[in-house]
């Protein structure tokens, strides 16, 4: 099994699906010759020409609307949104149109569209290019949301997304594009709504999405030194969410920390934590802890930026307190 970067995995997934299905095309800013700022789509234009790898002007609402129309009329567009922060520009096309058309047409129209974008801070890109906004779209019924946490997930989930007849938003961590993982050469797809247990444990469940999976895995190693056995779960998709894997785990460990890079307030961590509290309440031996990004605009200052996101040390510290039975919140 070759080891490839997350960026190469995405590239392979797009190429394979475009070869398989000629209705698939890629559209976005700087996707052709430039291959995006992260060089994810480099080389695709040589194989598929500018007919199917389409550069657009800087006009996110325009090409997003175009893609929704194309998806309604038989194509399977992959939209490349250069930064997740630009989601705000395509909100109407995505949330009011793409998400609702299947429902409002009485099932007569499908919108088989993939919006590929990214998340993640600590790249020194300041407040408008560092946000993790997946919770915004996960909130909207009619949209699926995938959060790959390595090259393996990135390829498997993207291929599933492209073949899905519903709009899917897929968030890649922009800091992980060069991270390598083993990816099978043969065809594979990862199902939506199926979480991965990356490490089995008995004392506390660490649930980490996307970039925070690595944070949780590192935290588990730190905790191992203290004799604490942490289970690490990557939900892989937020919508649909694999509730049963998470609940089964928490019922075994009685403790949970949900870690996600989106802002903590009203976010992904809150949603998962509340489902645990609702559905595994009688199994809990400690409060369910949320750890999201600090609720501030992401600072440009590297020193400040680094403290806005959860760290392995921070997660391990919280886990130790839960296992020790410390009172987490004052009454």
């Amino acid at each position: 099994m070759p080891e490839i970067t997350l960026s190469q995995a995405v590239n392979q997934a797009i190429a394979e699906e475009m070869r398989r299905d000629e209705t698939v095309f890629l559209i976005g800013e700087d996707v052709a010759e430039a291959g995006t700022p992260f060089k994810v789509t480099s080389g695709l234009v040589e194989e598929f020409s500018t007919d199917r790898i389409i550069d657009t002007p800087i006009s996110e609402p325009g090409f997003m609307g175009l893609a929704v129309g194309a998806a309604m009329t038989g194509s399977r567009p992959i939209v490349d949104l250069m930064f997740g922060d630009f989601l705000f520009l395509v909100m109407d096309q995505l949330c009011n149109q793409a998400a609702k058309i299947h429902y409002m047409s009485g099932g007569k129209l499908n919108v088989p569209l993939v919006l590929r974008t990214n998340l993640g801070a600590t790249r020194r890109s300041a407040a408008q290019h560092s946000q993790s906004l997946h919770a915004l779209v996960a909130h909207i019924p009619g949209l699926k949301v995938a959060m790959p946490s390595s090259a393996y997930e990135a390829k498997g989930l993207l291929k599933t997304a492209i073949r899905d007849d519903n709009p899917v938003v897929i968030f890649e961590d922009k800091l992980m594009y060069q991270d390598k993982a083993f990816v099978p050469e043969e065809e594979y797809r990862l199902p939506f709504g199926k979480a991965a247990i990356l490490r089995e444990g008995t004392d506390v469940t660490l649930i980490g999405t996307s970039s925070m999976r690595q944070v949780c895995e590192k935290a588990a190693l730190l905790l191992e030194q203290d004799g604490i056995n942490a289970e690490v779960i990557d939900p892989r998709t937020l919508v649909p969410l694999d509730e049963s894997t998470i609940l089964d785990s928490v019922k075994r460990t009685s403790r949970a920390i949900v870690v996600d890079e989106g802002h903590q307030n009203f976010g992904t961590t809150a949603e998962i934590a509340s489902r645990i509290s609702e559905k595994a309440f009688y199994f809990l031996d400690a409060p369910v802890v949320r750890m999201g990004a600090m609720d501030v605009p992401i600072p440009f200052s590297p020193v400040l930026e680094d403290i806005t996101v959860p760290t392995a040390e921070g997660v391990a510290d919280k886990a130790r307190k839960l296992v020790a039975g410390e009172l987490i919140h004052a009454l």
Partner: protein
Amino acid sequence: MPFEIKMPQLGMNQDSATIVTWLKNVGDKVTKGEAIFEVETDKATMEVEAQSEGYLSCIQVELGVEIPVGELIATIVENKKDVVKSVRAPVLTNEEDSKLDEEQKSSIEKEVAAGKNDVPTSEEENSSKSQELVSPSSASKKVLASPKAKVIAAERGIQVSRLRSLGLSEPIHASDMMGLPVGGQSNLMAVVDDGLFLELVEGSDKIDKKTIFVSFVRGAWRFLFPEKALSVQIINLDGSVSSSGDTDSRNHEAPAVSISLFDLRKTKLFSYGSGSSGNILSIGHHNGTFILNFSYSDADIQLSDATKLINEIAARVENPILQLL
């Protein structure tokens, strides 16, 4: 000029508090900074110090009653001769006590008792912060236990409100519950003819009659469960304990099962059992028979073992020679 002691504001949004204990009596000398009473707000309990030196005088308020912030509580006077007896709630000196009408007295006693009982039983492990959270004010309130700990308590038939009295530090977690006995309590009774016992034991000078039943229990236990440790104690009728020697000295890995003996032979009582925990064997004497009543905790002893044990003890009471064999 007497100094007025008023109810202090102890928190931002606190508008009243309750005096739970007086630490000084009327007429006592107080120095500045010395604690004179203890108040309880909805958040915490704390001591209030004297702001001036003198003698405590003229207490205006009752224990256990909500007093608005700023209300006059008592005064501190400069000279002992200016001390005025309390207008209402007298303090804890005997001479004051005697002047109380019974109702007032009992209400004060209740308060004092409640105050004493509220001291949490084990708090060494808590940080100072959590100590504050489970200290007296909250002690009378809800027991802090995790949902899982509560489920375990329910499964074992232990009321959550009892967990505090078992000495667990709060918040209580599932792991704290592991060492607790299960809640079930069972009862067995045996009736034994007293003829041979009276003849052999009561008639003998060499047998220590006080501990003969302890010997029977130990002997029966050793005969049936040689691998398990046992400790036996005699509970006197006034509740005091006379220990009958230490736990069986042989090495046992599991902690000893403890059995308490109630000797009711010289009384008209013939049986005693406890609804809570513990293993109690009472021995009554009535109409030519001994009545052995064994109230035991299911967590310590299984039914099959308990029946064997009581049968064996009964046999020894019936025929004390068995004990010698």
